[in-house]
């Protein structure tokens, strides 16, 4: 074809990687349903299998179109196995799911090899492919009764090593070792080496005696009984050893998988953008064009009367440019799920390897953050999760002994708070072992032996370069290049990482990343003439106030009784010294917000609508203000404050409904500042 296909390769690679991610996620889901069911075999949800199959199918199609033969061949084997699975011709049990995951890894490395031109680990891939093919053979044999049959050695491809040493007198019984070996060859793939060490010298050789012995390697779906059968007549006349070596499946080492992972994720130089963002961008550009036209018109027939108009126009231009900048920046925002997507697989593989039962719970992954941040966040996150798995979560037995459930939990929570994106990695394992850390630190000379350190200080010690309390170094962790690198990475992103740990209960790593530029889903509300933005995540509901539910306790403040509970009622107009439209509670709305488990009701005049806003950090432009987490510039140029719900609730519960008068002034100042200063973009 004259068309250069190379331009499409990029698309193919990206699609394939995405498809692989989907396959992986679905396979993990498949396995989880099995775990939940408590059996070894999986009652497969057909939709899951279909999804996995479709991904494999499209990868196969794409790769053969573009001429990536290795990928296509492997994908073909995988696809046919998946087809058998989804047709119900074979049952996916845990072993099969594990093998399929391995196959996904192989496919990934093959695709990377095709992309980068480097070679993949051919042997490992070949081994996995063989296993896949044999899966097909034996799966047809398994009865689809849903019972886990005790798998005899026979039905797997086994690798037998047979040592056959006939007695010298074997020929005299009319038996011929050659015939026996030939019969063995009929059972599977045979490789024999004859051992001629028993041969005496020529003069002593008696042609009627057997001096040879054989080392036979037999590969195939062969039962031990079948092999023993072949030798049944000569059992007493020879020395026979049958040992099985199940073919070691060379697992692509964790390292190579991780490398593969790292290489893709870090270097995708394309971006997925949601269409509304692009639309907003286009709008902005449109506005810019309008402004520019207006300006050129002005300057064409310029008179000094029009100076003010010129200034206004220039201001407009500035605004438009800023908006354009922000729109573009917004395009670069990706949800954190991109950083989190490798973790389930990692947890799955590692938990199997370490023989621990771990469940990974991810929440808040739709929190968006800039792409560069995500790219550089992946490695530290990986490391922290690995640490949890390796050091934190105990083996099931230990957990049960400690009174915890067998399955450990690692919780990954991401959310926005006060101008930062917080990522919490919490595990319910054994927590940091302060005594060991202390001992190791002393050992490494970091602290004197008699130093008195608080638990927090001891926790801090692990961030020292070269520090590791792992007794054995594995390729998972323990090389001591971990925590300090993590910290420095996060520092370079402008954030920091903290530890909170409780011995025996678990540890929690808190990664704080500044919102250099982050987007918030907010609800805009109106108090008086000012517009505020309330983060959607904190909103529980909004109600019309029923006056008799309002009560005024003796200590001051107002309470609103909603169903069974009483919530502090906070009038934003009072808080921010804004003139409300009406002080009559029945005229406005009460927005119930929640943060940190506490609720409060915010009294506002009106709810305007839901919108996404770009968060501008107040602190960089102005300074920290209570009750406000950040500010934003709305489409029409006005400044809106983004409410800090946690702060507000704290204030409401503390009963301070009358904030310092200065606050309002601050806010106005802040608004002015944010409005006029050019945004600094990191």
């Amino acid at each position, binding site marked *: 074809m004259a068309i250069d296909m190379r331009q499409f390769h990029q698309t193919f690679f990206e699609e394939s990687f995405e498809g692989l991610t989907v396959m992986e996620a679905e396979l993990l889901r498949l396995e989880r349903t099995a775990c939940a069911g408590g059996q070894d075999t999986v009652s497969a949800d057909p939709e899951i299998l279909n999804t996995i199959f479709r991904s494999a199918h499209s990868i196969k199609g794409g790769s053969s179109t573009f001429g990536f033969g290795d990928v296509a061949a492997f994908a073909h084997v995988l696809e046919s196995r998946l087809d058998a699975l989804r047709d119900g011709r074979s049952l996916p049990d845990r072993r099969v799911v594990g093998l399929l995951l391995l196959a996904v890894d192989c496919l990934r490395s093959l695709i990377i090899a095709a992309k980068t031109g480097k070679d993949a680990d051919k042997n490992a891939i070949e081994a996995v492919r063989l296993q896949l093919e044999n899966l097909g053979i034996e799966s047809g044999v398994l009865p689809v009764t849903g019972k886990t049959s005790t798998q005899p050695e026979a039905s797997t491809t086994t690798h037998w090593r047979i040592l056959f040493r006939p007695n010298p007198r074997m*020929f*005299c*019984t*009319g*038996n*011929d070792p*050659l*015939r026996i070996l*030939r*019969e063995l060859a009929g059972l599977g793939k045979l490789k024999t080496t004859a051992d001629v060490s028993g041969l005496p010298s020529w003069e002593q050789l008696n042609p*009627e005696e057997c001096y040879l012995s054989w080392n036979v390697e037999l590969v195939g779906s062969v039962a031990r009984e079948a092999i023993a059968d072949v030798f*049944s*007549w000569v059992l*007493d006349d020879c020395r026979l050893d049958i040992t099985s070596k199940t073919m070691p499946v060379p697992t692509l080492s964790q390292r190579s998988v991780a490398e593969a992972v790292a290489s893709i994720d870090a270097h995708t130089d394309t971006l997925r953008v949601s269409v509304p963002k692009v639309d907003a961008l286009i709008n902005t550009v449109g506005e810019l064009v309008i402004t520019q036209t207006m300006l050129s018109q002005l300057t064409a027939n310029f008179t000094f009367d029009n100076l003010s108009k010129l200034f206004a126009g220039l201001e407009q231009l500035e605004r438009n440019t800023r908006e354009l900048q922000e729109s573009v920046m917004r395009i670069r925002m990706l949800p954190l799920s991109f950083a989190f997507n490798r973790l389930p697989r990692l947890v799955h593989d590692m938990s199997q390897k370490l023989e621990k039962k771990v469940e990974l719970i991810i929440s808040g992954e739709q929190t968006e953050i800039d792409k560069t941040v995500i790219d550089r966040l992946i490695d530290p996150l990986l490391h922290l999760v690995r640490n949890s798995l390796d050091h934190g979560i105990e083996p099931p037995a230990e957990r049960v002994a400690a009174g915890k459930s067998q399955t450990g939990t690692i919780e990954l929570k991401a959310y926005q708070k006060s101008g930062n994106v917080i990522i919490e990695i919490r595990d319910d394992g054994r927590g940091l072992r302060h005594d060991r850390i202390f001992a190791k630190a002393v050992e490494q000379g970091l602290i004197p032996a008699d130093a008195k350190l608080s638990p927090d200080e001891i926790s801090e010690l692990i961030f020292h370069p070269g520090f590791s309390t792992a007794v054995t170094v594995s390729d998972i962790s323990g090389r001591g290049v971990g925590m300090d690198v993590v910290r420095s990475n996060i520092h370079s992103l402008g954030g920091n990482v903290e530890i909170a740990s409780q011995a025996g209960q678990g540890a929690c790593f808190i990664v704080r990343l500044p919102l250099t530029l982050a987007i918030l889903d907010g609800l805009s509300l109106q108090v008086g003439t000012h517009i505020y933005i309330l983060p959607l995540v904190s909103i529980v509901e909004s109600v019309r106030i029923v006056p008799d539910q309002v009560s005024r306790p003796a200590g001051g403040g107002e309470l609103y009784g909603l169903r069974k509970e009483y919530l502090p009622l906070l009038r934003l107009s009072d808080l921010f010294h804004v003139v409300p439209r009406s002080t009559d509670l029945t005229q406005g709305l009460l927005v119930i917000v929640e943060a940190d488990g506490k609720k409060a009701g915010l009294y506002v005049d009106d709810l305007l609508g839901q919108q996404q806003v770009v968060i501008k950090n107040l602190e960089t432009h102005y300074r920290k203000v209570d009750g406000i987490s950040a500010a934003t510039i709305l489409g029409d140029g006005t400044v809106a404050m983004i409410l800090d719900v946690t702060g507000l609730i704290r204030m409401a519960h503390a009963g301070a409904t009358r904030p310092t008068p200065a606050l309002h002034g601050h806010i106005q100042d802040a608004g002015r500042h944010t409005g006029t200063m050019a945004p600094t973009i990191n």
Partner: protein
Amino acid sequence: MATILTVDDTASMRQMISFTLHSVGHEVIQASDGQEALKVIEGKKVDLVIADINMPNMDGITLLKSLRALADYKFTPILMLTTESQEAKRQQGKVAGATGWIVKPFNPEQLLTVVKKVLG
């Protein structure tokens, strides 16, 4: 194809063995006891011997030993026909140099497989 000697004092047994072996093209020589067997193989070349154990005049074990003593039949495969209850006899046969054993009653397919296995 091959020449097979079958020795059994039961005519029906010999008949069944011949019938089965003929169906794949082997040539079969019959004898009703050990003595007759030794007589009948004179001048012929036999590739395989299938012999019963319990026979008058000369029983299977003795025939086996006599055959093994002949130069021509030192390495010829000799299979013993036996019923399950004769474990002791089987041991005797092995010691005397039998190549293998077939359990009675035999399944013709099994017989053919064993014959093929032993004739190569």
